[in-house]
């Protein structure tokens, strides 16, 4: 598994609460909204999940009937592309 970003929508208050708990876990990073306290029903939540937690988190989401999709399947590729040292400036 690679690090991923999921778009998750909570349909009930119970799901909101569960999603807030998941997003406080230190192997996830909340992209949107800025804080778990802003998670609301029927509003997409964008959650970055480290590779080691992807299976566990997606299983948890499926078990609790969340609607979710993969926004970014492999964040490492993009990060490498961004930080590639391609400068020719000889400073």
């Amino acid at each position, binding site marked *: 598994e690679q690090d991923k970003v999921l778009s998750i929508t909570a349909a009930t208050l119970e799901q909101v609460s569960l999603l807030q708990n998941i997003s406080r876990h230190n192997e996830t990073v909340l992209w949107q909204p800025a804080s778990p306290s802003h998670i609301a029903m029927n509003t997409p939540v964008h959650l970055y999940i480290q590779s080691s937690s992807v299976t566990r988190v997606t299983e948890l989401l499926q078990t609790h009937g969340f609607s979710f999709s993969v926004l970014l399947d492999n964040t490492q590729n*993009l990060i490498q592309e*961004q930080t590639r040292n391609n400068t020719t400036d000889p400073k």
Partner: protein
Amino acid sequence: SGGMNNERYHSLEDIYHLVNKTSQEHPDMTKLILIGSSFEKNPLYVLKLSGRRGPVDKAMWMDCGIHAREWISPAFCIWFINYALTFYKEIPDITTLLDKMDIYILPVMNPDGYKYTWTTNRMWRKNRSVKEGSSCVGVDLNRNFDANWCTAGASSNPCSDIYCGQYPESEPEVQAVTKFLRSHKDSVKLYFSIHSYSQLLLFPYSYTLEQVPNHTELFELVQEASFKIRRHYRNIYRYGSGAKTIYLAPGGSDDWVYDQGIIYSFTFELQDRGRYGFLLPPNLINNACNEAFAGVKTIAMRVLEK
């Protein structure tokens, strides 16, 4: 070669180098101003851009990179500087802006956090300040301004991504900006803070659901900017006051600026809306900057008319 390449992100060291080089190569149009330093003592440089003319009494401020992981934001500030210096006296829009006002640009307001995203954790948001008695690092600089500080929408938990800090303006990065803006309050008429992502054009307030006195005027400005972006770049930017458009967020820079009397105060959230988020690929930087500039330009020209 290699200097102002828009199709890649720049490390903090690159940005310092670019800004210094730019000020040396364009002494007639730029002035490098050190407004303070970060918690880890990285310098906070503002580049002042001016047209080749005498002094004027109006100015615009733009800061980028309050949040460390929002890389498109410093990329836009660098792009803007390059665009202004390349096309002054070539393209009417930027020529008018630089002839009528000075433009202060802070390319990276959170250099410690930005560096940390390049070296350790790409997803870091806050600055890197530490306080005795807490094992958690960093304050959300956009919750640390003295604007209804640390009320609903911010957190007093040092481990939170929206931690407001120990007290208003506790962070040296915020202090440097507020000190500069307080001392330039008479000339600075227009304020932009550049963030990402989700494509939004926002104005105060974020700390309350109440409307600012000139709400309609600001609404019409961002509406026109959004229309321009949609027409020219076929991209949709939502717009409105911060609290109503996204969520309550006290302690933000635009709200503080507004309450200081700078009533044309805006926060832009640049591309994209989730597909890449904070990891916008380098080949999309140019398009993101072009549409952001369309928004800035539209609002700035209107404010100049006013």
